[in-house]
């Protein structure tokens, strides 16, 4: 059984910290994500969303901060969750290292793309 392999620590470094992070971020994400879904998917709906709508929304700094927090917490929570799932199937220390670094790069790339867009705002092309 892979769990008895002495080369694989039962509890990876910082796993306890991440265990707490998943739960604290969950408590913050429930109002953030549910609020976002309620407004965008239910009250406004895809038929009401356009470039002008995003520009109007992001003209208010409060909504930009809201979206920035949602991006930062939701995406990190999601990618760490994916890591937890993958670690159930990938059990050698070396493969886990590859998965962890791959996911870290993925998290960094998508978070940066999203953060640049929120800070840069809507750029209408002429």
């Amino acid at each position: 059984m892979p769990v008895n392999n002495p080369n694989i620590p039962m509890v990876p470094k910082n796993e306890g910290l991440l265990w707490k992070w998943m739960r604290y971020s969950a408590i913050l994400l429930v109002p953030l994500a549910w609020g976002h879904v309620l407004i965008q998917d239910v009250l406004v709906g895809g038929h009401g969303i356009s470039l002008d709508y995003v520009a109007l929304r992001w003209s208010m700094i409060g909504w930009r901060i809201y979206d920035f927090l949602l991006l930062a917490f939701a995406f990190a929570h999601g990618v760490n969750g994916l890591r937890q799932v993958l670690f159930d199937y990938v059990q050698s220390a070396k493969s886990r290292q590859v998965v962890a670094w791959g996911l870290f790069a993925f998290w960094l790339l998508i978070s940066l793309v999203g953060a640049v867009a929120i800070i840069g705002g809507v750029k209408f092309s002429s």
Partner: protein
Amino acid sequence: MGPRFVKTLSGYATYKGSKGFLAFLLHRVTGLGTLLFLTGHVTTTATVYFYSPWYNRLMEVFRLPLVMFAEMILVFCVIYHGANGLRIAYIDLYKPQMLAARQSNKAVLTTFIVAVLLWLPTAVVMGYNLLKYGFGLLGGE
């Protein structure tokens, strides 16, 4: 990973455990589904800055009836994952002595029912929008 993965999947299919196991599975599926959407959502929304002519065209995809239907399932995923996550987070962080209660069938079932009840009104509104804007019924186009 191959044989172990197959073994895991067949284990999922044949395991006759408590409802907690179903909650565990549903929590994973709804979380992974939400992350998949989120990745696409962040990158498509980011076109508003990187190349805005693409944005309105990408939004047309979200107005396809099939995608609007998938959006209703996504909303259920976010509601269930959040409700179930709150059950886990609250008891693990603040009431660890209630671990047995958190893992009980009753807690799992209650969470599921709460999630469905929260989802139903969103499904009514989004179902109406699907008929109106997706299929052009009810005076929509």
